[in-house]
């Protein structure tokens, strides 16, 4: 198996964001066929003073080593993918994600996450979001099992 070298992740340009949350609605449509956004969206735009912040998975892949059934994998295109048919809904990845980007909706027991599909990018009328390609080795993180204080 050839391990992927790069992955596309989201980049946010807050100065272009108007806070209309079209991205969240597009995202919840991908995951739950719903226009609600919010809790059902893998990307969240949060008001931060006069500006906005983006909160979304950055594909560092720490969760991969957490999954007891191998439902989390790095796909050929480099993204960290949760196979919900294999997932047993334990929430270990939700609890251990260092930035809280693995999400859980009341809709179903299995969590969901950003798959870099670009729906949010396309949904933004102002071009505040873009997908950028980066090297996996530069972002990859492994902090599982440390003896003593990290």
């Amino acid at each position, binding site marked *: *198996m050839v*391990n992927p070298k790069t992955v596309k992740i989201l980049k946010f340009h807050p100065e272009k964001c108007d806070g209309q949350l079209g991205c969240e609605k597009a995202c919840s449509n991908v995951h739950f066929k719903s226009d609600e956004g919010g809790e059902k969206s893998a990307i969240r735009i949060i008001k931060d003073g006069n500006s906005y912040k983006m909160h979304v998975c950055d594909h560092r*892949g720490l969760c*991969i*080593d*957490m*999954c*007891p*059934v*191998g439902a989390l*994998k*790095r796909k050929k295109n480099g993204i960290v993918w949760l196979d919900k048919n*294999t*997932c*047993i*809904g*334990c*929430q*270990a990845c*939700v*609890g*251990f994600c260092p930035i809280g980007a693995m999400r*859980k909706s*009341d809709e179903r*027991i*299995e969590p969901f996450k950003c798959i870099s599909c670009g729906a949010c990018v396309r949904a933004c009328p102002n071009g505040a979001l873009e997908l950028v390609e980066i090297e996996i080795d530069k972002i*990859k993180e*492994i902090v*599982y*099992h*440390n*003896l*003593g*204080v*990290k």
Partner: protein
Amino acid sequence: MGKGQIPTEEYETRNTKHKWDYKKIKQAHRIVFKYSFKKGKVERGYANRTLYINLSSKEIKEKKVTEEMKDKFTGGRGFGLKLLWDSIKPTTRWNSDENELIITTGPLCGTTQYPGSGKSLCLTVSPSTDIICDSNVGGFVGPYLKFAGFDAIEIQGKAKHDVVILIDGEKGKVLIETAPLEETNTHQLNEQLTKMYASEDTDNSRQKVSVVSSGKGAENSYWGCLNFSFYDIRRKVPRVKQAGRGGLGTVLRDKKIKAIVVKVEKVSGISNNPADPETLAKIGTKLHREIRDLDRYQCNMRAVGTAHLVEIMDEYDLLPTENYRFGSFPKASKIYSPEFYKHFTKIIPDGCWHGCTMACSKTVDGFTVMTGPYKGQKVTVDGPEYETVGCGSNMSIWDPLWILEFNFYCDTYGLDTISTGTAIAFYMEMYEYGILNKGRCDNLELCFGNYEAVLELLHRIARGDNGEFIKVASKGIRRVKDWLIKKDWGDKDLIEDCGMESKGLEYSEYVTKESLAMQGGYGLTLKGPQHDEAWLIFMDMVNNAIPTFKDKAEALHYFPMWRTWFGLNGLCKLPWNDIEPANNAETDDPTKVPEHVQNYVDYQKAMTGKKITKEDLILQSERCYNFQRAMNVWMGRGRRKDDWIPYRSMGPVTKMEYISRKDRYDKYITEKIGISEKDIEKMNINEKMKLLYDFRQDQYQKLADAVYYRRGWTPNGVPTPQKMKQLGMNDSKMLKILQDEIDKDEKAGLNVWGGKYKKGEELPSIHPNYWKKW
């Protein structure tokens, strides 16, 4: 394996690869009898039926779980007690045809969201104690059994030839098949069965098979454990957890069961059909985050598992060394957890059930076996856990590799490391005193630290060696004590005081000499001296938080009840207090971990949909706890005399022990017994030891008085019919038995307090028949 983010297919254990002729093994199977069942749905944590198999009469049937059974016995160990009560006699012994081996689950068992939710509870009449022994164990069997359709499996009778019992939740079938060609020892048998019974040749499919097995050691000893497997998709081996205590594996092999295989079609996050899955996910995630943020500052379970305790116990003089003579040792740092961390495989989710992020099931992969039938092979060793390392120090083995070797062979031979290690430590002490010697030990030089002799003893037991010593040694300390005394090879008191068993079961690995409450935690128990009922050493000895008998009795009421609750529900105790919320120390009652207690209230509520308070949790336990004690009484082992503990667990048996901690004991005699320092100077060591002996024995009896009173038992330790009724346990047969036994005690003058109370000292109650007035 130091790297992370490796695709599961690419992991490698470096273990020796086996090639078996599976076709031939399968062809040798013959179906002895079978049964088809309708696949059911688990509702709010219950499958609502249990499975009964009789290997003698070849009968299989389903039993309904009634609402009343759920209300009174909750599940898990409670269900096991109820099933045994309906099936055995007071005269039933471990090898009686009517004895049962029971595996139960519990309503919360199989939840994936909350860490530590995959425990099975196993019960049987124990060969060591002649009463019921309950043992909890991880692995996938419990959850799978329930998802296949049963809250418990109950196996009575004995097969004629070695059989495998298959519970196939995929096809709705129970098959009892002869299995003549499979290996018996766990690590090989599990590999064979997991591969043979998986529906497809994939790791995901193998992960849906779980096996209960034991080994050759279990056939030839009273220390047989049950190994419960959980297939690891990364290591590609079925790993095992043990229901260790009380000889359950011995009963398995006595019934000629080679293995029980449980298979499921599918596991999901809501296989239990909880009433409120959102709440489960919320409280589970909260605990995952606590573990993520705090474990490395607290117990470090995720890195080294329970072995983190070794250095703590050594520091506080609690690590049993040379058969509990000492609690610390200069060489102990050689077996501290960092020494094992070096060998553990990292970066794998080491939970024994899905979703347990405590992940304490550590493993050494590619370990090269040094002795015995598998010498030279590379294997996966599950552990060592703290207790197994403690066995190492108890036998004075200070080499991590030899502890791993001991661990591996105990597991694969189906031997409980605790009983085996504690017993051998006792034999070694007897060897040191010349009560045993090479001739008497069938040519084994069983001196402290001789790891080769220890392994040789295990191999001989597994081979079924007929040597007189091997035969009796494999039955445990109690039988060896009787044997040594009968042979008149040593002083009876010394033998009785040194051998660490109570009720016939070997102690687990903590030194309790300086903690009276913990002596009670081992002695005033149902199945025998195991730390799963109460662990009060720090509270009592280090923090001095429970100074009076009344305080200690309260702790010996609350904690055994609280810990029993985990066993009723199919849970592991570790996520309760081996991880604590950051602000726990500032709460009203830090030792109870109030926030986590509330988690469990919410958890059971979210599963069953019933309204529950934290007091209800204790009530659920109290019902079952008293029921089990009542069954002990019924079987002739539930009175004060049966709560006897050896003096080694209370104080220094030998001069060497006294001298090694002279300042401590001298100070104790001054402060607690009231002898002035001047007078102590004049006393010789024998006088001081006698003084200490009498005082501490009396303290233990006074503790028993206080505890029996708090638990609502007679002064002779019998649960009263009044108490049982108060708890809602109204089984008329049981109430009558208890009344009769209490009347017998009354006639024999046994309903009296055991302590010698001086003027001004408070009795638990001035009415020895206090319970009648309820």
